[in-house]
């Protein structure tokens, strides 16, 4: 295995959880709900995933538990911001902190318990192709799932009527309501999808990437996922570019440190964040300062019944 191949493989593993979490948040935001609690939902997914996997001995049960945990947190958030029309920013921040705390409690009995990760799927023959084979056809199920999610979401938003209705709720909730759509229900379902994705991304961290539990192991990936949604200007395929840009810079920075590039490691560690900020600024500049955000993003909607 060449060095480049090794680097690319690690880039894929670093980018996958970002992509999964971002695509879920993208759906929630296209429906008009800003859920800043991705970090909290993600780490709850990580904790619930490893707890269930160790307890039952089944990775599938772990993944299912992670998804359910993410959805449960999203449901709490939905009750707050949709049912009670509370401020989405405040509720989202609270959700992130709540998830970090609760996951510490849930994961406490499992700290440092080692566990075999989820194996990779080898596509027969194709995975034997030199260079491309291992990259494209010898990956864990999450990597394939992440691309299936992106393709599915792109198709859903662009081609289906349900996707059109979801976008309508995010653009102008009052108008969607006036046409007779159940805005709050649609937004709630979008939130649940976002929670499921965040939970799944969390499961990737604790079941594949570092197959054991440490508290706070998401280390800010949920926040990066939020930034990727903006970076992608709410388009699903661009989220792939954002996630892989960020994942790539993270890994390059590690390798540069290993190769002894004479830059303080702290500065190197900050590089991905700087690149994200720079990319966001450049995108905004290129667009002339305008916004492509869904017009109704973050605005509570209360039907007057």
């Amino acid at each position: 295995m060449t060095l480049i191949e090794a680097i690319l493989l690690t880039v894929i593993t670093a980018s996958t959880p970002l992509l999964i979490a971002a695509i879920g948040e993208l759906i929630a935001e296209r429906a008009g709900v800003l859920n800043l609690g991705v970090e909290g939902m993600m780490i709850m997914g990580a904790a619930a995933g490893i707890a269930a996997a160790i307890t039952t001995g089944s990775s599938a049960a772990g993944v299912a538990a992670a998804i359910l945990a993410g959805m449960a947190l999203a449901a709490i958030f939905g009750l707050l911001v949709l049912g009670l029309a509370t401020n989405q920013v405040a509720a989202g921040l609270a959700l992130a902190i709540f998830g970090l705390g609760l996951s510490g409690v849930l994961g406490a009995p499992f700290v440092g318990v080692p566990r075999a990760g989820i194996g990779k799927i080898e596509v027969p023959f194709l995975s034997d192709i030199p260079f491309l084979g291992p990259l494209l056809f010898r990956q864990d199920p999450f990597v394939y799932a992440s691309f299936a999610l992106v393709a599915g979401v792109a198709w859903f938003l662009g081609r289906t009527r349900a996707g059109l209705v979801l976008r309508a709720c995010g653009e102008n909730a009052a108008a969607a309501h006036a046409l007779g759509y159940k805005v709050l229900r649609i937004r709630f379902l979008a939130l649940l999808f976002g929670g499921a994705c965040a939970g799944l991304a969390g499961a990737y961290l604790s079941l594949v990437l570092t197959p054991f539990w440490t508290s706070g192991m998401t280390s800010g990936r949920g926040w990066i996922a939020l930034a990727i949604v903006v970076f992608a200007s709410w388009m699903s395929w661009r989220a792939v570019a954002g996630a892989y840009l960020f994942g790539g810079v993270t890994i390059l920075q590690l390798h540069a440190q290993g190769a002894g590039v004479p830059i303080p490691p702290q500065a190197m560690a900050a590089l991905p964040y700087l690149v994200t900020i720079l990319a966001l600024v450049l995108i905004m500049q290129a667009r002339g300062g305008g916004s492509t955000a869904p017009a109704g993003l973050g605005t509570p909607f209360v039907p007057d019944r």
Partner: protein
Amino acid sequence: MPGRVRHLSATMPLLEARRVTRRFGALVANDAVDLAVPGGQAHALLGENGAGKSTLVKILYGLLQPDAGEIAWRGAPVPIPDPRAARALGIGMVFQHFSLFEAMTVAENVALALDVPEPLPRVAERLVAVSRAYGLPLEPQREVWRLSVGERQRVEIVRCLMQDPRLIILDEPTSVLTPQEADGLFATLDHLRAEGRAVLYISHKLEEVRRLCEAATILRNGRVVATCDPRVETAASLARMMVGTDVGAARRNATAEAGPVRLSVHALSLPPPEPHGVGLDGASLELRAGEVLGIAGVAGNGQDVLFAALSGEQAAPAADRIILDGAPIGREDITARRRRGAAFVPEERLGHAAVPRFRLSENALLAGHATEGFAPGGLVRRSRTLDFVDRISAAFDVRKGARDPEARALSGGNLQKFVVGREILRQPRLLVVCQPTWGVDAGAARVIRQAILDLARSGAAVLVISQDLDELLEIADRIAVIFHGRLSAPLTAAQATRERIGLLMGGAAMAEAA
């Protein structure tokens, strides 16, 4: 394709509201309202803002549920739990506000309103066919934000017609149209009626109703006060029924004696505030002491940028683009301009002119902190701001519960009287006011217009930016038209006919007039 609709017998109404009552808290928005619309009739629902028209049509379209009473369709009582049910009956609605999705294409907007899902290409095809049949040309692939207000309304109407409705409800459809666009709408409505469709037409524009409708139901304070045939009534008699008393026009004393030029703007160009917006493109004007200059135009043609440039919310590119009493003020901020005796009333009264959750006295302070001596040495003198509120309330008949309530507690008309009064009481040398009577009841509108006229006659220069052409024709000495950020040369009151201004509002003959 929508087919020809069978005429119903004249005896049974197509749609009937029977004793419909709807409360919001203590407010009774609809109080045992009866309404009957026979098939094929153009029926007007008349009333002032807040009379309960919108509540009633929302109930008819399933957006609200009545607390009491029932809706009958072809004589049989029916529940209308949501708009889908209304559309299934054959009721279509053309909204004026909050109804289109800006970032989506025309076809997508139409597809969203269809109850039986169709693939987008099919929707686009049908849309083109319907729009052609009714003379309402539309491009299905254009995004809505690219469309003019008139085109947006076409989208609304075509969207409604795609469902082949028997009854079409139109909510204040001409409030944002130029007179020529309104004529186009009337022709479409005649076409619809010729097909036997009924039209429920909500408006407070009396001449339109007299021209268009065979019957009218008039609401006041949530109650039906009269039903009549508007064709045999006069505009004055209809207005009396709507308001309950006679409403005169603002009294205009002798025509303006042209004073010296107080405000002049030279070739002012500013970029649009947002990517899809309209900025200013070489706008010039001269405003003399003692006159009222009106700026007419359809919404979204640069009025907001013009106001921001004059008030100082947005600086001009160079100081000498805006000159007040000989001083170049283009780079000065709002406070500096206020100190020079200028006063500004923005369009939006809640959120721009007043902070909703601040008390009136605090809102008075925000506007007058530099000029009224409310806060000598940086400390607020509450007695002075309260006293100012009292003086405004007395002079402009601001009706409120407490002495100093929060701004949001006032009704629209009373808050508007407060924010206009707040500036006029200062006796400014220049007043710039945007949409002074938008969404205000007739009584309050008259007070405000009279105050503007009186201020001008006392020697101030007044600039009124308004989309209400009737208002400008009533109070302005000269009228200029803003279109796509360009200002036309002003017409004098004598030259300013509805038709000439309407043509300018639609962008025609701008070159000829300039």
